[in-house]
């Protein structure tokens, strides 16, 4: 009994600490976004909605343009990434092929290049291809950048699905493509959704590529957009930045809640004895 109390107390304390630690910046952001004083810590709290009105209403801030750009770029990147990653993961986990481990390790190695080391080269390539300040300039590197992670997640997910399921499908008359689309993908839907969501978040938050490869509101994404917010008189407009940041977290929050049902584990329960 005593041990249980201790362990639940420990759980509570550590979980509480983690929650406070990671949520505190958000709380600060949230509070500042509703504050009329420029600096919340020294200026006191005066409630206002002006920051939100500015962010959504002032055309020159281009907040909604940035948001639109981000959503489009992140959506396309994550969909293409997951599509490619599931095909690759299927091949690696299910088809007879030499050098599977080598491929996985190679992909992992590629993903270890720091972004900064790529950016100069990328800038030149995109300039040559005349793609600077287009969605394509962001989508292509994002796919390449996120693909290794997505592949690793999906490979480990597919590995958990018993091979008897494939065999049953083959016996039931499925071709290799049908095995993938009628059995493996539907069964791994939770894994695919979480991978897609993760890819989306990665692309949505990406900063350096977006900073270098876009030049204005026509394709600039929101992290860069917010960072480059200018106050009317040259000061840093904290209130508007915080309001914009708060609004930016909404789509991610929304997606997570929306797909939560699909992300929950255990859909494979019942496939085999369990």
């Amino acid at each position, binding site marked *: 009994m005593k041990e249980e109390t201790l362990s639940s107390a420990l759980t509570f304390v550590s979980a509480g600490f983690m929650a406070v630690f990671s949520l505190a910046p958000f709380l600060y952001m949230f509070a500042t976004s509703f504050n009329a004083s420029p600096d919340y810590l020294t200026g006191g709290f005066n409630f206002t909605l002006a920051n939100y009105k500015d962010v959504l209403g002032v055309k020159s801030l281009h907040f909604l343009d940035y948001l639109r750009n981000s959503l489009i770029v992140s959506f396309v990147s994550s969909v293409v990434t997951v599509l490619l990653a599931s095909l690759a993961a299927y091949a690696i986990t299910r088809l007879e092929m030499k050098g599977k481990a080598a491929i996985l390790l190679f992909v992992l190695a590629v993903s270890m290049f720091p972004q900064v080391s790529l950016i100069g080269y990328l800038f030149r390539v995109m300039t040559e291809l005349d793609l600077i300040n287009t969605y394509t300039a962001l989508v292509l590197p994002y796919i390449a950048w996120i693909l290794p992670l997505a592949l690793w997640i999906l490979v480990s997910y597919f590995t958990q699905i018993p091979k008897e399921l494939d065999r*049953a499908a083959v016996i039931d008359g499925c071709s290799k493509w049908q095995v993938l689309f009628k059995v493996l993908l539907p*069964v791994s839907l939770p894994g695919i959704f979480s991978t897609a969501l993760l890819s989306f978040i990665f692309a949505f938050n990406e900063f350096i590529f977006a900073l270098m490869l876009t030049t204005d509101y026509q394709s600039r994404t929101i992290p860069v957009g917010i960072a480059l917010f200018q106050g009317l008189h040259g000061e840093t407009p904290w209130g508007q930045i915080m309001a914009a940041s708060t609004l930016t977290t909404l789509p991610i929050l929304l997606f997570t809640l929306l797909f939560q049902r699909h992300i929950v584990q255990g859909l494979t*329960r019942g496939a085999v004895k369990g």
Partner: protein
Amino acid sequence: MKIHINGVQKTYSTLRKKTEVLKNINITVEDREFFVLLGPSGCGKSTLLNIIAGLEPMTGGELRFGDRLVASVNKKDFVQPKERNVAMVFQNYALYPHLTVFENIAFPLRIARAGAEEIKSGVEKSAEILKISGHLQSKPAELSGGERQRVAIARAIVRRPDVLLFDEPLSNLDAQLRTATRVELKKLQRELGITTVYVTHDQVEAMTLGDRVAVLKDGLVQQLDTAIGLYERPANRFVAQFIGFPQINLFETEVKNGAFSLCGTDFPAPAQAPSGPVWAGIRPSDLELNDAGPLSGRVDTIELLGRDAVLYVSCGQLEFAILSERKDFREGDAVKFSLKQGKAHCFPR
């Protein structure tokens, strides 16, 4: 559908070594037969089943369904599983977890692009035969192990396959359910009249289900016979030991002048027994308590089986297991017993 397995071999090669899983398998499964492949784990029985199903290629020999060649060493002879019209039931059920029971059973028909009416009537009929009509809208996760295995069997028979394959389908069920399902499976196969190949490591399943049983070990058929044939005329020491409960008594001895000796008593050897060193095999049921002897010993242990008991009786260096209807013995009791006429087996040593 008659299945001809002619000289089938299977070798797995890795860089380091070659493993011969099937060495030279020759079996003909008769039309409508319930055929059992029996053997310990690693004997190659599941590999053989996969080769029949078309899930694995072979590295030697050929496989025919009736007159039709469905696989050989030649890759171009390989007929895909769906064109072989086989169905398979797996040990772990392998149901599609994202589909309802109805859709699981309907799956082979949908892949074959059957019409909606055909699917509905086919699924309902299979479900009725397997007594799972009440679960059609459930997901596999909501079913018990026994129900899941029924769904798997329903899915297998819905397409009216020419050949039904079972890969240890009862191993995951608890003992009571296993026995009940075994009986139903036998009945079902009789009613459907589909040629069936059934893989198991359980000799009781093999004996009760199989019209004929092939005992496999080390990639070779040790013996192919009816269940009773395996029990009464085991071809070698392995089969004799593998089949029958309680296990056969085996003693090292020698055949001289048509007789072998145990505990100082001579017994006539079977007519076809080789001369020289042998294993003498005597089933516990072929030994009977007999006040006239000639064998005698002391009871070491008694195992109660219900109607019968197994007495472990030591006689000099040897220990005999004796199946006895009398159970009123205590450890240390002296007993006399004899061997039923003509029931001894001799295997070269």
